[in-house]
């Protein structure tokens, strides 16, 4: 009888061991570079007012962000080519001013996990920004994966 109890206990624990699994993805389902905006020469985060962001050559000229105040943005990259360009059109007192962010990279097929799925990672080789309003750009994460940390910092002058 005592042995039977031990065996039943073992089976209960074993079933718990099998059933206790977490099927959630705590990261992004795709690899997207997170771009965050900073005041020039500092690590102070700033927000761009009434900015419109669109991909150059995007189907239907669709906008990713339209006249919205944002402090950071995820920019999806194309996998069929090795270069993606994004246009930043500023509003308010800088209306009509535009900057272009150009990213060159290599697309790498990547299996993140059963929960998050298969995707592409991007190994950045060059990131440039025109300087009409933006001051400079810094790459802080060369291989863009499905993590949620910042990949690119854009610096803007502040008054």
């Amino acid at each position: 009888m005592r042995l039977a109890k031990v065996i039943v206990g073992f089976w209960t624990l074993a079933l718990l061991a099998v059933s206790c699994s977490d099927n959630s993805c705590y990261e992004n389902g795709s690899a997207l570079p997170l771009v965050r905006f900073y005041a020039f020469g500092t690590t102070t985060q700033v927000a761009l007012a009434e900015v419109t962001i669109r991909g150059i050559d995007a189907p239907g000229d669709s906008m990713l962000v339209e006249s919205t105040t944002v402090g950071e943005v995820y920019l999806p990259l194309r996998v069929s080519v090795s270069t993606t360009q994004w246009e930043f059109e500023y509003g308010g007192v800088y209306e009509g001013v535009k900057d272009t962010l150009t990213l060159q990279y290599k697309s790498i097929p990547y299996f993140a996990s059963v929960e998050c799925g298969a995707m592409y990672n991007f190994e950045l080789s060059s990131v440039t920004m025109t300087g009409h309003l933006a001051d400079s750009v810094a790459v802080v994460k060369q291989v863009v994966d499905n993590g949620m940390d910042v990949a690119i910092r854009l610096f803007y002058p502040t008054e």
Partner: protein
Amino acid sequence: MAWMLQYDCSIPPNETIQMNRSFLFILLLLMAVTSAAQDSLRYITPVKPATNVVQPPPRGTSEETIRRYLAGDSAAMEQARQDSLKKAYFHYPLLTDLSVGVNFIDPVLMLLGQDYASVDVHATLNMWNRLQPTVEIGVGWGKTTPEDMNFTYIAKPSLYGKIGFNYNFLFKSEPRYQAFLGLRLGFSSFKYDITDVTYQNSYWNENVTYDSRGISSNALWGEGLAGIKVGIWRQWSLGWTIRYHGLFNYKKSELGRPWFIPGYGPRKRSLGFTVSLSYTIPFNSTTKTITNQ
């Protein structure tokens, strides 16, 4: 008695009182000494109550020993006590037995819908019925296509090995019945494919499919386990273990991280269990017994 009466009568009364006092003093002194000796005897020879019981001579004891035992011979009683101790505590030899078995639960669970399996054969050397060095060699494989996901993961059949030991807490009992804790060190070198991947980028209106095949990886891990083993028929027995494991290291590829590790299970799962059927080959049919000090 007559001598005492005569002697008492011949002594003067004042000497009688003095003698009575001396006699009482000596009597009290003797009682104190013997009492102290008895107390000290109790404390300086502690014994386990269960082992201090002198049991009847075990079977096979010679007639002469039994006769002396019944006659109250102290040497015979001591011999009987030693024999009863020997009977109570088996002491198994260095090489008690060898068990070989197969862990078969994963294929059964695969029939019930599990996506992976690890099957191994193991050999366990039972030393003194306590320490049990163990080797496990097996093969693991798996395949999964989760619902609402964009891939098929194929873990190709790959070998794995584990070495370690168990400590049997029922070392006084028969080797057929064991309850043990153990440690394992495991290693596997394996390959996997990620196929039928569909990648969609709604903003750029891209739909791409690809396969990544032959991704190689390896893993080193440790396991702590608790288990029981029960004899079911002759030399055959069933064993259950629950295992908590953790990865010491595994190879990450540019193309991804493995989901399944042969012998370990899903990479993110830290608990596992096994059920095994094993056959025990005894090295010696007789058991040695302890030499009682």
